[in-house]
């Protein structure tokens, strides 16, 4: 049997304020899986992602990534934040090269890798621009390019497209999937959008709030590759409807949305 890429074993997280953010979370993510964490606000989905990244320690339980601790596995992981978190004083090119620079990759190699990555995400024409000169969608693409440049095996995304308009979001979703099929990452994706989760995932984990716990796990059996046409298909619409229903049941059973 193959060991899962990410194992989450009986993880709980209690904040210093005493609030229980996560309770008894157990979840395995296999190599090459695209798993979305879906749930209403307060369900701890972002906290769970931070625990997997090693940015936050769980109060109890264990997490392993590629068989080792999240902190040791940082070379394999790239984290994409909700906002683009670009350094405003660096050009697009310098932002994308940040990770390599911090890892002391020599400049010529860095430049080559960065320009290849910019080409891959279609940003070559803005390489010399500063973040403030870019639109929200462009900034997010820079952020993704920066995450991919260190050749991660595992991608952790924390509602990366939440702030974008629907069209940019759809397009970035398609681009992300194209890259996913090429690079075969293991992906853990936090979102509150059902449509996005269904479109992207091989599996959706629905979390219930107060305290955050796993309510449902839904495999998504839409065929690959998924494109803009996928969104028009009956199968997709059915999946969206059924996941929405499950999500609604989670919200109503805990007193609805605050």
């Amino acid at each position, binding site marked *: 049997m193959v060991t899962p890429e990410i194992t989450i074993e009986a993880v709980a997280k209690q904040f210093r304020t005493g609030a229980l953010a996560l309770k008894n979370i157990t979840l395995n993510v296999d190599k090459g899986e695209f798993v979305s964490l879906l749930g209403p606000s307060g369900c701890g989905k972002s906290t769970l992602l931070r625990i997997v*990244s090693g940015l936050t320690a769980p109060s109890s339980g264990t997490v392993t990534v590629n068989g080792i601790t999240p902190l040791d596995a940082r070379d394999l*992981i790239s984290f994409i934040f909700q906002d683009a978190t670009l*350094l405003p004083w660096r050009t697009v090119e310098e932002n994308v090269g*940040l990770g390599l620079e911090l890892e002391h990759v020599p400049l010529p190699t860095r430049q080559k890798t960065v320009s290849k990555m910019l080409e891959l995400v279609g940003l070559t024409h803005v390489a010399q621009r*500063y973040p403030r000169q870019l639109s929200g969608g462009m900034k997010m693409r820079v952020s993704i390019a920066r995450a991919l440049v260190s050749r991660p095996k595992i991608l952790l995304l924390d509602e990366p497209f939440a702030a974008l308009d629907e069209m940019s979001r759809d397009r970035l979703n398609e681009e992300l999937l194209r890259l996913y099929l090429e690079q075969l990452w293991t992906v853990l994706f936090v979102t509150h959008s059902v449509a996005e989760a269904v479109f992207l995932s091989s599996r959706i984990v629905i979390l219930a709030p107060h305290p955050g716990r796993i309510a449902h796990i839904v495999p998504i059996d839409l065929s690959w590759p998924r494109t803009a046409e996928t969104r028009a298909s009956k199968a997709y619409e059915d999946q969206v409807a059924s996941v929405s229903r499950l999500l609604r049941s989670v919200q109503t059973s805990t007193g609805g949305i605050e």
Partner: protein
Amino acid sequence: MKLALNNLLVLAGLLALWQLAVSLLHVPPYMLPGPLVVGNAVLHRFDTLAHSLWLTTQAAALGLAASIIVGVAISLVFAQWRGLRRLLFPYTILLQTVPIVAIAPLILMWAGSGVTSVALVAFIICLPPIIANTTQGLISVEENLLHLFLMHNATPSQILLKLRLPNALPNLFVGVRISAGISVIGAITGELFAGSSRVGEGGLGYSILYASGQLETDYLFALVLAASSLGFVFFFIGMFLEWYFLHNWHESNRSEIPE
């Protein structure tokens, strides 16, 4: 361009009004010289004036430069060790509230008269704004940016130099702009007590004292003019540096968005 022209017109109007008042009311020049008399004093004693100006410029520039270097260094230490910052930060504020006029004679007594002690007075009053602003910029880094660096296993020195320091640049320049103006005041205050190697010759502060004692009110006005212009020039150099380093990326310097 049009604004600059209007500014000049306002200046010309004020000068004309001043001249008119002095002439019509027959104010004696030792009480209040008109702009023409002051202009005359500038022309006739240009060499002495320029010499004083040069001495003060040196002291102020030296004090300002030292305060930037030392201030940034102290801020970096404060940013790195929170405990130390909490312990010592209040004293940097205290430095600002110390009446410099009272301290200046002591500094001159300890360090001897000359450009070093004058620069030291300027340095002391320039330091607090640099420390306060730079420290603020160094410690107010967005949490996600910090996490981003941590995810790349960044070392503390990488976080300091590649994240905190550039993040603090806008704040540093606010400090520089404040300190640039007051560095001249500091130098002049120092010179009030610094004495001179030759009677009648020294920095602007010394010359102001001397001219005032001799009731050379027209020259006094010329000195004040020189001192103000110096402060102005320092301020604008600070502004230019700020623009030079920030105009590419910082929101405060946003001019237009291409496309």
